[in-house]
């Protein structure tokens, strides 16, 4: 069970000088021990017999992470002999760096993070793609005509986070539409929605399944219904969050990777099953006390469509074409200096 190609990744992780190999290995072991406070901490608190694992999310614990939380709370990890600490993420967290530093065993990272890391030699491997449709979309008021063609973006004021992957996506959309920066106005996005509320921006980036529900609800209450602009509807498939692991763990503990992946995906599958909706909502509510239950239920419905587009869809499937396109987009936008063959970083269970 190895990724299609791991040669380049493994090569980067190896020490440069064969002569000093033993010495470096010894020092690295020592460093690894120093760099593993999280894992050691987990080890002391883990249930007897269960293997301690640290799993770093990309963002806060809410409906976007329902499967991760469900797998933990409802014993999917425990059933496979794992004692998993699911740690919330945040803007200052980078799961890939944590994997390399040994602070986490598994993590969630966006596709652009994975590709940037691969371009800099990080031996990262994607073991599951949670979101099949990117939840990063743009909200706009319904009082303007629906955007059915990309040419309709001309003349609009569009919010983007400079440096964020919404900038990359929007610039790709604009390139696809044959528009350049003089045809539209770009507005820098901050943490608050004030420019959108005040009408300074026509389109504002938003996470469709979390903020999108809350903002749409708030605007509907003030008599301003909204719509969402989804780049995927226009052929721009930029992969969103995925579960990642360090190549070292695949090499040394393939069974652990296999058990974790199986438990996690089963957790997601169960959490998105309509039959388990009440339990899933109850699970989210334990971690997200600020979202009202009705909005949470709507967030879960939207998350379900983004993660499992059809009822029989196998959660976690790696959309190879979308990954390829994501790399091409980043390459075209100059965000990576050279091709990284990201497909070789995708985990293939059962591959030789």
């Amino acid at each position, binding site marked *: 069970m190895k990724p299609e190609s791991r040669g380049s990744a493994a090569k980067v992780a190896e020490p440069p000088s064969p002569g000093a190999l033993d010495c470096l290995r010894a020092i*690295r072991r020592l460093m690894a021990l120093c760099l593993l406070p999280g894992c050691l901490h987990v080890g002391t608190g883990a249930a007897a017999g269960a293997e301690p694992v640290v799993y770093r999310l990309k963002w806060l614990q809410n409906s976007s992470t329902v499967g991760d939380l469900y797998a933990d709370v409802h014993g999917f990890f425990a059933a496979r002999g794992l004692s998993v600490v699911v740690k919330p993420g945040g803007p*200052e967290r980078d799961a890939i760096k944590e994997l390399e530093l040994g602070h986490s065993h598994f993590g969630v990272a966006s596709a652009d993070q994975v590709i940037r*890391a691969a371009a800099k*030699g990080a031996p990262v491997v994607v073991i599951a793609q949670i979101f099949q449709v990117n939840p990063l979309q743009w909200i706009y008021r319904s009082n303007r005509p629906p955007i059915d063609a990309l040419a309709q973006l001309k003349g609009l004021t569009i919010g983007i986070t400079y*440096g964020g992957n919404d900038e990359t996506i929007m610039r790709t959309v604009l390139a696809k539409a044959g528009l350049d920066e003089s045809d539209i106005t770009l507005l820098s996005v*901050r943490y608050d929605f*004030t420019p959108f509320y005040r009408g300074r921006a026509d389109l504002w980036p938003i996470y469709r399944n979390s903020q999108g529900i809350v903002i749409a609800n708030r605007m509907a209450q003030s008599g301003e219904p909204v719509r969402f602009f989804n780049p995927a509807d226009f052929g721009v498939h930029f992969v969103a969050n995925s579960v990642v692991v360090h190549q070292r763990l695949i090499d040394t503990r393939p069974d652990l990777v296999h058990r974790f992946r199986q438990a996690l995906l089963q957790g997601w599958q169960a959490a998105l099953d309509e039959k388990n909706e009440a339990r899933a909502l109850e699970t989210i509510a334990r971690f997200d006390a600020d979202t009202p239950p009705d909005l949470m239920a709507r967030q879960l419905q939207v998350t379900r469509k983004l993660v499992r587009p059809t009822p029989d869809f196998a959660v976690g499937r790696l959309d190879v074409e979308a990954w390829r396109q994501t790399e091409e987009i980043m390459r075209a936008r100059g965000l990576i200096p050279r091709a990284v063959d990201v497909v070789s970083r995708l985990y293939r269970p059962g591959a030789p």
Partner: protein
Amino acid sequence: MLTRRIYQFLIVYAAGLALLLGLKYLAGLSDYVIPGPSLVWQTFHDVWGRYAADTLDTLTVAVLGQVASICLATAIGIVGRQTTWFGNFVKVAAYNVQAYPIVALAPIIFILLGDGFITRLAIAAMICYFPLLLVVLGVMSEPVEEIEHFYRMTGRMRWQLEVKIRAFENLHKLTTVVAGSATLAMAGTIVAEFIAANAGIGYSIRIALYQSDLGKILIALFLIGISLSVYQALLEWAGTLVHRRWEMVEGGAVP
């Protein structure tokens, strides 16, 4: 003074960089976690012009913010030196405002004032004014009895004179804290830009963080350090100059 400041900074920066690189090679970390020397150099080559302009932009706001904070701290210090109810009230209010972390207030400031120049200036001034205020309050509340006694006894004491005597007697303390607060002004501006502005080196650092690019952050830190060293050296030099001039012109006596 300037050369000393710069090479002291270079030593600290080089030591920090060496530590990072040592960690990188010992733990076998990729360039994604800690960039190697060639990548850092390449990044420097790619971004130094843009980042230098951003740093100058930030420094300009920091300098103006510091001037604003000096004026504010002086005004509050002069009013707060009085042992009256109002003087006490001003002192307590100034302390209470400082109790709120700026990162909690910054979003409110940004929502009210937008993400332009005024907001960055306000946050820079707010961050660096408190240490100035403490020193100004301390200096202004402490009578210089041996001099003030004479003026009081002869009925010539006015508040302007009192302020002048106390400032003169503590000039070294005041110039030291002004030079020191430059760091805070710069840090305050960078925090403001990082949180929500659209310009400056703090904003560039935020973008670099989005892109997980430690190389760019190291370059930004280098430019911030250099510009701050130059600015602090200039402040120290100006402080020495003022001190000498007061002593020479007034012959050491308060007019």
